[in-house]
Each structure stands twice: as C-alpha cells, then as structure tokens.
C-alpha cells in the first residue's frame, strides 16, 4: 500500500552529504516530497527529515540504500510511531489597509502571526502540520498571495523512544 512516510536520517555533517542523500533518492527512483536539514543534538551530526511516498517495500529499500552511505548513521521511519510533524510557512499577501481586519481574523483563528506589515502587504507566519498550512494558504488565496515560502517538514517521535 502506497502511503506517506516521514524518515529521519542522522548524518555526518560533511560537505556533500545532502547531495549524497538526495542524489540517492533521485537515482533509485524514490520520490522526495520534502527534505529539511539542520543541526542535531550532537555536534558534527545533522538530521535530515525526508517525506516520501511508497509502499512498505520501497520504504525498506530506501532505508537499506541510505544505510549503504558511509555518512549515514541512523535511519528511523518516524511515521510508524506517534510523531509530531511541523512545517513553517511565510506568506506575503496583498493587504490594502481596508481589508486588514478581515485577514487578521483568518490569521487569529489559525493561531498564525503577522510578522511584517508593508504599505499594502502583510507577511503571515504559520506553523503546523502540512495540512494546516495548505488550509491557511487556501484561505489567503482570495486576497492575492504575492509570495509563499515553506520550509518543508521537520518531525520527531513523541515522548520517549525505547
């Protein structure tokens, strides 16, 4: 059964490691819906969170192929556990002064924030799972989105890992 998988990959923070990992996905015909990278809890190691789709066999191959990379230290399929997944988006939306209260209403219901006000635009910052960001985007579309930038998903397993 094809479904979405969120994989966490702990890697050596070496030049080229992102290229190795993303190249492997492309070459082997695995798709990447989103990929984020940043420092991890340990110095010298980075954590990548990759969202991909495929059946269980694909996931198994993804993980085995990742382990073949010398710079890959640990691969965990987060989505097989209860997890928190979050994405951040900045949305610059057309906002003539007259219409601002209306937009503010939308932003508040989503517990998003206005992080910049221009002469006729607002920048909205929203954090949440990808569906929430999709929904926010849909609601802001009628006002005219001038620019949209999403970070991609970062995630971790809830509570303690045994």
């Amino acid at each position, binding site marked *: 059964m094809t479904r979405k998988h969120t994989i966490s990959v702990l890697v050596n923070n070496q030049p080229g490691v992102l*290229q*190795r990992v993303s190249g492997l996905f492309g070459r082997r015909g695995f798709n990447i819906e989103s990929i984020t990278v940043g420092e991890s809890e340990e110095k010298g190691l980075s954590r990548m969170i990759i969202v991909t789709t495929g059946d269980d066999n694909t996931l198994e191959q993804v993980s085995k192929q990742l382990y073949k990379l010398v710079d890959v230290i640990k691969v965990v399929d987060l989505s097989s556990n209860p997890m928190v997944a979050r994405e951040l988006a900045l949305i610059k939306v057309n906002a003539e002064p007259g219409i601002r209260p209306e937009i503010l209403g939308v932003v508040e219901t989503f517990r998003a924030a206005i992080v910049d006000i221009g002469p006729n635009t607002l920048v909205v910052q929203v954090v949440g799972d990808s569906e929430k960001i999709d929904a926010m985007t849909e609601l802001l579309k009628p006002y005219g989105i001038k620019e949209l930038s999403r970070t991609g998903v970062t995630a971790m397993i809830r509570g303690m890992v045994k």
Partner: protein
Amino acid sequence: MIVQTKQKSKEQLHEELLKPDTITGSEMLLRSLLLEDVDCVFGYPGGAVLYIYDAMHGNSDFNHLLTRHEQGAIHAADGYARSTGKVGVCIATSGPGATNLVTGIATAYMDSVPLVVITGNVATTVIGTDAFQEADITGITMPITKHSYLVRDVKDLPRIIKEAFHIASTGRKGPVLIDIPKDVSNDTAAFYYPENVEIRGYHPTLHPNKLQVDRMLEAIAESERPVIIAGGGIVYADASKELIEFVEKTRIPVTTTLLGLGGFPSAHDLWLGMPGMHGTYAANHALQNCDLLIGIGARFDDRVTMKVNGFAPKAKKIVHIDVDPAEIGKIVETAIPVVGDVKTVLQLANLKAKPSKSEQWIGWNQENKKNFPLSYQDSDTELKPQYVIEMINDTTKGEAIVTTDVGQHQMWTAQYYKFNHPRSWITSGGLGTMGFGFPSAIGAQVAHPDRLVVSINGDGGMQMCSQELAICAINKIPVKIVVINNQVLGMVRQWQELIYDNRYSHIDLAGSPDFVKLAEAYGVKGLRASNKEDARRVWQEALDTPGPVLVEFVVRKEENVFPMVTQGSTIDQMIMGDS
C-alpha cells in the same frame, strides 16, 4: 616485469615508513600506499598530481606503471584487484584525467571490485572557480563510488587513505575515490599512520543471524528440488571451498552467474552451467522448476532473471545470502534473508548441513545437462569463434587467467571455457564495458607474473584501449591477446538480426586496422589465422613465444550466441540455435 622483489624486508620498510617525520602530502600518500602493501599503482600524470609524481621520482620502493590512457590505468587496477583480491590503485590528474576514469569506476562499482582511486584536483584556493582543468570529480562519481573524499587538510590524508582501503575492501567491496587538491599534496605535516579505523556509520554485518541460517537448513532438509545460484560474491569472499563443501553435504545442484564462474568447478557433477540470457538449458530449467532457490552472493541481475515476474515460479521459498542487506528483497521476494559474509555464512551452515531429498531431482538435471549441452555447428571451411575458445580451453586446461571484453566473444568464452579456479575469470558483468578486456589483463599479469594470462577481445572492443599495447611491449608484460575478428559489432549484429528484423544499422567495422600490423607497430608480435589448422598452429606459436603476442582469429561473421532468451521472455523460453 614491473614488480621486482624488494630489496628491503617488509618489516624494515614499514619501520622506515612509520617514522613520524614532517613530510608533504605527496610523500604521505606514497608512504601510506606502501604501508597498505600496494605493490603496483597504475596511473597517468598531469598538473594537479605533479607533486605526487615528483615524490615518486627515484623512489625505488614504489612501483608505478604508466599507461597510455587513464581508462587503461583504471581497468588495469581493476584486473589486478579481481585477480588477487587485493585493493587495486590508480592515479590520475584533475579534470580530464579524472573524468577519463569514470567508466572504469562505474565498471568496478557495478561488479563490487575494491579500488582506491586517487585523483588530483586544483588548489583548494581556486576550487569552485572553474579553474584550468577543474572538474568536480567527487560530485561526478558520487553514484558510482562506495564512498569518496575531497581532502581539504593535509593532516587528514593518512587517516583518509587508511579509511579508503578499509571501506574498499570490506563488506560489499567497491571503489573509493580520494580527490587531493594540488596544494594539499604539497603541504606538510607530521606523518602518522593510524592502526585502526573507526567510522561511525560503517559497520558491515559479517556474522549472520544464526536463526536464519537454521531456517535455511530446515528449508533445505524439506526440499525436493533445491537449486543454488552462486554469484561473484562467492569469488570475492574467497568462499569456493566452503561452497563445494556445502553443495556436497546438501546435494544441491549449482548454477554460477557470469561473475560467479570459477567460483565452483565446472567439472563438478552438480554444476549446471551459467543461467540467464545466454545460460544453459539445464541451469535455466532448474531455476524454473525448483521448489527452493538459494541465492549466494548473487544479486538477481536482469540478465539472469529476464522477465522477473515469471522467474523461479515454482520456488516455494527463496533464500538469499548476501553481505549487502540492500540486495535482499531488491529484485525477488525473499523468505529467508541471511545477511553476512558469504564465507562465514557457509562455514556456519556447513557445521550442520544435511542432504536434501534431491536425488531424483539431481537425476532430472543431469539428463538435461546431457540432452541439451552447449553446442554449435562446426565448419571446415570457416573458422568458428566457439572452436577458437574450445581450442584455448584445451591448450590451457582451464589453468590460465582469462579476461574478456564485452560482446559475443565474452559469452562464448563464458560458455566454452571451463573454469576450475576462482579469480581466473575477469570480465565486466554489471556495466558491460567495452575496452575493459585488454587493460584488465595487464593488471592481472602484473599481479601474476608467472601465470599465463589470456585476454579475449572482439575487433570492436580491442580498438577501445589498444593503445595499451605499448605498455605490454615496453614492460614485457606477456599477455596473450586474442582478437576474435568477425568484422562487425557482433553482439549488436545478433540483436539486429534476431530482434530488429535483419536491419543492420551501423555495425560494420570496415576500416579497422590490420591487427597484426597494429601489434607490430607497438613492438608486439602479431599472428593471424582464418582456418582451423592455422588457428592451432599460430596459437601454439603464441603460447611458445615469451612476451606479449597478439593473435587475430578471423571468424565467421554471421555466427550467433545461443541459447538466447530475448527480453520479455522467461528464462525457459530459450532460442536454442542452429546446432
């Protein structure tokens, strides 16, 4: 020969090398390679490796063979590695030197050959500026190396070399690239050579899970129609002896893949030949009728399985033994995965192995072997390529090291040469690289100065690295170079005849050189034959002549390789040919 016996004892040399002097990156490289017991490096100089070549000047401990093309160097290093099991090493300069290695790196990667590939690069200060002869070789080769390094600090160099040798030669073997910028090769630091390697993300599983081995043995005890498909992993793990013992204890018939040839003696009753596209009737029918399939160090390549969803349809279970976990379940669904070093796994299995209920099945397979042998229609007027291979087999008695290029001659050699020993068969299986056959023989001969090395090539592939004739002549490397000349790109011709309806498109090799004169131009003896009698005579002359000899056999152009399974068919749907 190139490799002279060293004057100094190994201990003396190592003691000298390990001195903690402050030296350049280039000197570190040479010392490290000597400490890894590398006895010959194949290479080609250029601007970015001039410090390294300068350090070689006058260094009598260090052997380097200058080829005429970087592709020749890397295939030679590959032949050296395949014939010895040691790590092969080659050196090239940045940019064009490095990119000329790409085909050879991919060849070694596909066939799991341990290589350490050293390239120079432009100075760290200009990397990324499109400097003269700059190429991002680590980027270019990422998909075809097991791992790679771009050295940024001379202090890291010895550790990196140590790691590179370790990674190349352990677990599933493969090529590792070390890219050394020019300034790093000239920078100095105190030399140290680490004793151990500790790489956090790299721990190949060598010891199998015992429960899985037991499950395999249970499955064998229950099965009535078991078959083993043994691949290159048998050879690379030096597990031939263990395989023979396993087969004899369990009474399971064996088929060896192209790269597995020699991993199991072809004279053995339980050997069925090679499987797949040009496999034997017995091997392919055994696979299609088995109830238990055991893959050992074989990766179920599509040239073996052909149409995958009709492959081994009656197998109730598939067992897969491999050191690379990613191979298990990649192509065929596996009921019993055994991850580990093939030799270790078989040693463990041999402690408890018992016969399967296979006697009737063995009889059936032996009937197939007898009733459907490999065969061809011999001729008294034309020389047949199969005849030439049989003749080489008769005269060398399976004791030579044989390398081939890629094409029909490769398949005929795989079919008609009878391999008795592992590491005596060298061919590009995974990538199918034309131009590989001849230079890989040079590497094998350098590693085995006292053995007979025969390199069998097509007239097409011979022209892809023929410049290395110079190396044989000048260094007196006594490879016997065979050119099976059918005047066409034979394998392509065969496909165009059988699959593209006789539409022969661009396969005519008219304009090829006179191979005898080509050899002579380089100072290598050349001989030619186009009938059986001459063939026997000139081949004997070649064997009796010390030093390199090129022998051209002019053969029938229209000859095809049979049996053949065409794309989209299952392996028992075989075209048996015109014998």
